[in-house]
């Protein structure tokens, strides 16, 4: 089970308190998007093998969304950071 640091609660809590929210930093712009961009936004994902930026929600804690950098091979978390903050440069 993952141990995840919530950047709002500033606490490390077990994975069962959280809900995974998919790839982070996807931009949703339905008005501007072409068909290709919209298809990409809806369905296509990086599915990175390695360091992956992803959303999590502290579902049974503060309830807020935040982002997380995790290595998808070792499952080790490199960093968590608040929604809206840029992806940290790789450690």
């Amino acid at each position, binding site marked *: 089970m993952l141990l995840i640091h919530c950047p709002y609660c500033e606490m490390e809590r077990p994975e069962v308190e959280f809900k995974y929210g998919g790839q982070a930093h996807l931009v949703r712009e339905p008005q501007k998007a072409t068909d290709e961009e919209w298809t990409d936004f809806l369905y*296509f994902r990086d599915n990175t*093998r390695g360091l992956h930026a992803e959303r999590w929600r502290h579902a049974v804690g503060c309830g807020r969304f935040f982002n997380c950098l995790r290595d998808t*091979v070792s499952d080790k978390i490199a960093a968590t950071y608040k929604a809206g903050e840029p992806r940290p440069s790789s450690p």
Partner: protein
Amino acid sequence: MKFSAVSLARQALSGHKDWPAQWRSPEPKRYYDAIIVGAGGHGLATAYYMAKEHGIANVAVLEKGWLGGGNTGRNTTIIRSNYLWEASEGIYGHAHKLWPGLSQELNYNVMFSPRGVMLLAHNHHDEQAFRRHIHANRLAGIPNEWLTPEQARDFCPILNIDANIRYPVRGAALQRTGGTARHDAVAWGYARGASARGVDIIQNCEVKAILRDASGAVTGVETTKGEIATRKIGVVAAGNTSVVMAMAGLRMPLESFPLQALVSEPLKPVMPCVVMSNAVHAYMSQSDKGELVIGAGTDGYVSYSQTGGPHIAVSTLEAICEMFPITSRLKMLRNWGGIVDTTPDRSPILSKTPVAGLYVNCGWGTGGFKATPGSGHVFAHLLATGEPNEIAAPFALDRFRSGNLVNEATAAAVAH
């Protein structure tokens, strides 16, 4: 060499020490007419049917580990075809028709055992969804029938149908023709058959790059065993598909999640069928060795770790103990994970791609073992002719743009 009573008797005389290797293990040639990436059941079946039905035997199957060591060798082997949509009934139904004859076809015992697959309904929604499936399946000529809780218990006597438990059984959908097969034997049987027809199966050979010419068309692959030229590549890499496709600059509508399973210590025969519960993510059958084979749910995040969190397996076991009280003191022997490639509509992708010469067979997610013969069969056609046949056509990549999804996700959410 053909397996028969005579060959068995002859080998018995020499103490079974003279059985030949079942497939060749050659060094890669410099050029192949087609290269399959991934020696799981689907990749091996593809190569087998290319050689057998399309006369294309100058084919290599490249495998980064050992053949059948991916999801093929990690799955709980449930076989059924009672999916909701016509396109799904097409591909899973096609596979289901090939299973009964597969041992004969391959001269290899794949231990197909159509002992019946029963899907439990625990709530009103399950009941409505399953009845809808039953009607849809009957229209398509796919067997599926409704059982009352008592009939379900008669079909599987260890099932607890007490009305006052956490996951009460309100009924079940039964496909009597569903069942299980021996996963390793499926991979080995196709490997042996393909190798005998001239296909080179090359293990411990990881594809590291896809090579292309100025027009963008594929010209070969770079591997841990050197460069190999080809004009046709079929990627059949399950959980690692996104990684391989990225080598040709393509992004895929896939996410890779861990999916776990367990086996118990062996018991005398207690379970005559397969029981599935999508609502609690518990899937159980008994192997011929007597172990209870138990499938759990997926972990909630993208991962390539081939493990998963213990809480996932625990919640499945809690449900299993309640549904089958006889198991409550049973020891589990092993727990493992595979990496499943899931699509947004929970249906597979059998498709050409925007890169000339590059084809992909993936997205089978949590439930592709059952489709192995059918998937290999139609993908061989696609690779050989460059065009999908009518069974494969609905599973093109392009459906995510056109909106013609084959949405099995709404109906069942999981599809073991």
